[in-house]
């Protein structure tokens, strides 16, 4: 059994005298250790300060192989402090006094003066800095090893999640030595999830040994290690090559379906960003006919509002994000109304001048942000529930921030649609759009409606900013990168139609994501742009034309 796997990282700590041991064995050993530790509770005794000193001393080397051995020695020792040492080492907080013999643990490494404690006695030792404490460095391989060591040390009886993790690691790692241990583990195991992983690991081993019956267990398994092993077997000349190839084809076609699903999700989420950015514009440009080049900067305002609310509520990114939804709306809407009252209303019916004036406003707003907040990007934290991915199976996972934005987009769209459809404001807006003079003569105060509509469009742009803060950079240039796309979506979808914006944004997103793996991001964008231009040539009113008579 000699396949190498993407996940099978051979740490350089194992290339020294222990090279023969190999990482694969190491994993099996760790797994066995887990079982062993579950039975025998470790007895820890104090070691002498000299011994502790010697254990830590061994870490003080530039050679990562030697460091790995020193860490192994610490884990195997009786020192009561060992877990804390290894954790501190993992975090880069274990260090040694420069020009001295003492070892310290840094308890808080933010800032430039750190509180430190003695690593052996855990007594407070004042403060240290980078000039006085030399923290031990680790690399990727050592990090992986330390995580394994700490997991096995801090494990009392191994909860299901830990066992599952260990079982997952076993896939492709089972060999003649460990097969019986794993089989025994399978017999004792009760959790169905862990059993499934262990069965896969065993079946893969048996298939590699030429057991055709075990292929049945692997049918439809989406784990990439299974696929890679089967591909090797199918390409070889083992007696079961043909059968393995058959199973592999089944796996590949199943994966292909999930991949299509994933591409669709990518496309919809990219589309939802476009829709969010464009929908405010669909109101100001589409409904009111104002070419607002500062639309992007209103998006930026929403994003900066999110950042500011997060600064006011440190440690609560989730709450801050929820508060930013009304906050971003109000701030951007206020800016929008200000722009409308001070500039745009004087330029009514003069689109070229509006374009230039709003472009000027966009530059002013950008520079304002640079002066007030600095030209550097601001970091908007994501709450835990928007980090990571929803892992449906091995082949399909949906990233939570994108999923969140997609849902948010649909909610905003629904709310906006309802507002335009069912409220008095919506009625007045539609009336003013269709026939301004007639609406005014019916008693609609057109100037007020203009102001509120522009404020609404700007506020929705602010909402887009809140959502974008979760997936892209919050900086002075945030708006610039979305303004062209927004106009593209609105024009493609049909000016003055919210549904058009939704359909156009989503379809452009999906087309873009389908093209991207083939032709690359740059060319995909070019193709989409050319496609839209050709489409507009053929159908100038866009996807959804506004109904009614055109004069």
């Amino acid at each position, binding site marked *: 059994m000699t396949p190498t796997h993407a996940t099978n990282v051979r740490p350089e700590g194992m290339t020294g005298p222990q090279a023969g041991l190999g990482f694969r064995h190491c994993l099996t050993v760790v797994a066995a250790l887990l079982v062993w530790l579950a039975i025998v509770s470790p007895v820890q005794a104090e070691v002498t300060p000299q011994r502790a000193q010697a254990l830590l001393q061994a870490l003080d080397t530039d050679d990562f192989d030697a460091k790995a051995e020193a860490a192994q020695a610490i884990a195997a020792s009786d020192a009561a402090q060992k877990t804390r040492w290894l954790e501190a080492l993992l*975090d880069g907080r274990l260090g040694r006094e420069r020009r001295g013999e003492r070892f310290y643990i840094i308890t808080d490494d933010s800032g430039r003066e750190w509180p430190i404690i003695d690593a052996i006695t855990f007594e407070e030792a004042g403060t240290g800095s*980078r000039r006085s404490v030399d923290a031990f460095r680790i690399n*990727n391989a050592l990090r*992986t090893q330390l995580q394994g060591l700490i997991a096995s040390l801090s494990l009392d009886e191994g909860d299901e999640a830990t066992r599952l993790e260990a079982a997952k690691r076993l896939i492709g790692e089972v060999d003649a030595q460990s097969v019986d241990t794993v089989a025994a583990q399978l017999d004792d195991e009760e959790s169905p999830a862990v059993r499934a992983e262990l069965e896969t690991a065993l079946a893969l081993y048996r298939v590699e040994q030429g057991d055709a019956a075990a292929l049945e267990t692997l049918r439809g398994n989406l784990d990439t290690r299974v696929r890679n092993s089967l591909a090797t077997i199918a390409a070889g000349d083992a007696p079961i090559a043909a059968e393995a190839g058959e199973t592999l084809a089944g796996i590949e076609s199943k994966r292909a379906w999930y991949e299509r699903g994933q591409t669709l999700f990518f496309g919809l989420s990219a589309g939802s960003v476009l829709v969010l950015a464009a929908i405010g514009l669909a109101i100001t440009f589409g409904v009111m006919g104002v070419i607002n080049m500062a639309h992007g900067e209103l998006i930026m305002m929403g994003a900066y509002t999110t950042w500011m609310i997060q600064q006011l509520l440190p440690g609560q990114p989730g709450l801050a994000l929820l508060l930013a939804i009304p906050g971003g709306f109000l701030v951007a809407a206020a800016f929008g109304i200000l722009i409308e009252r001070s500039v745009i209303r004087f330029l009514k019916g003069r689109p070229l001048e509006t374009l230039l004036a709003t472009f000027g406003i966009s530059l002013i707003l950008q520079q304002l942000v640079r002066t007030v907040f600095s*030209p*550097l990007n601001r970091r908007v934290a994501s709450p835990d529930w928007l980090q990571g991915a929803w892992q449906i199976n091995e082949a399909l996972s949906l990233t939570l921030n994108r999923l969140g934005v997609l849902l948010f987009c649909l909610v905003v769209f629904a709310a906006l649609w309802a507002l335009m459809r069912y409220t008095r404001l919506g009625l007045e807006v539609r009336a003013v759009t269709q026939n301004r003079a007639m609406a005014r003569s019916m008693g609609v105060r057109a100037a007020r409606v203009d102001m509120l509509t522009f404020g609404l469009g700007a506020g929705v742009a602010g909402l887009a900013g809140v959502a974008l803060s979760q997936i892209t*950079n919050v900086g002075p240039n945030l708006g610039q990168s979305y303004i062209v796309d927004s106009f593209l979506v609105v024009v493609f979808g049909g000016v003055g139609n919210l549904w058009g914006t939704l359909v156009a944004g989503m379809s452009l997103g999906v087309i873009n994501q389908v093209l991207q793996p083939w032709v690359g*991001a740059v060319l995909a964008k070019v193709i989409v742009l050319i496609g839209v231009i050709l489409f507009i040539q053929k159908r100038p009113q866009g996807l959804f034309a506004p109904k009614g008579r055109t004069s």
Partner: protein
Amino acid sequence: MNKITSTAALLLSMGIALPAAAQEDTIKVGILHSLSGTMAISESTLKDELLMLIEQQNENGGLLGKQLEPVVMDPASDWSLYAEQARDMLTGDDRVDVIFGNWTSASRKAVLPVVEEENGLLFYPVQYEGEESSENIFYTGAAPNQQAIPAVDYLMSQGVERWALLGTDYVYPRTTNKILEAYLKDHGVADDDIMVNYTPFGFSNWQSIVSEVKDFGSQGKKTAVVSTINGDANVPFYTELSNQGISASDIPVVAFSVGEQELSGIDTGPLVGHMAAWNYFMSVDSDANYDFIDNWVEYTGDDMAVTNDPMEAHYIGFNMWLEAVREAGTTDVDAVKDSIIGVTVPNLSGGSSAMMPNHHITKPVMIGEIQDDGQFSVVWETSGNVAGDAWSDYLPESQDLISDWRAPLRCGKLNVDTMTCEDGAGAE
């Protein structure tokens, strides 16, 4: 004219001649970094750093008995504006003696003909793609052999067999990736094991590309990403990596344009272990570095201010220029150009850097792994300094070329095979 008469009037009225006259006679240092637009995120810090260095030098008595005077312009991330303002600096009212500036290769390419025509001096502090040598430009950032090639060597030593080369779509990533592809193929990497992908500036929609990389890396061979992604597109890229669960132990990313400054916009918790290759890290353990950081923190008044590799390059370049002017006894461009070759000054990593005849400098190369506090921890370092190579040895069109600006050769593009000079004063 007005200035002179008003100064004269001032002298008469105040009756003190000497200090005011000394004030008038300064050495002007041009700073050509964007303070607005997309590059402001990286370049505005360099402007502040140079102002600090000039202030320090003036406190220490200036240069040749004169005070240094900064001339700051803002090319607003507009490449053609860089050329215009460089010309202003070299010909305008306050004619500068030296320019420190530029970040992107595109802007350097725009300024190059101007400094050559007006015979100026430009110190360029950023890692770049090589394949260029100008008599008037000093490249204090890394050439590909001082960053990209050692990084790939390190990854090979870690067992990487499959390579995803991701970059932003412009001249630096494209040339660097061309060199890397040639280098990898020389080392027996198959075509199928190399994936190349370019994205536009400021790209944020990384999901399908990251997913493609994930798939590329799950084919059973150890895979690494070599990233020449530039600017703020890095933030969504790394966020997407961590969201899709790609950790450094699965597919490590080694980046050539991500430094401490760029990381200050990201939560680095999920990125621990991803790498960057540079010639300097803020975490480098040396007293020169600690002093520099202390000064920088004091100057900016920001306790969390970070330093990075291009800042070190300017630090080295500035000190080299000072040293060369002292040696030449004048700020005359031709004299300084001759005296600077061979000048050796301390760098921030505890050693020293020398200016080579090809206008590149010697520096150590380091690989750092990202830590959860936004700093890098150095996991590998070249044993000594590496001299920058203007013309890559791995591209067929440039493997026979060298550059040597010393008299009497004075050639930026000398073909050692045919011994003909293709560019430079020596060509005539």
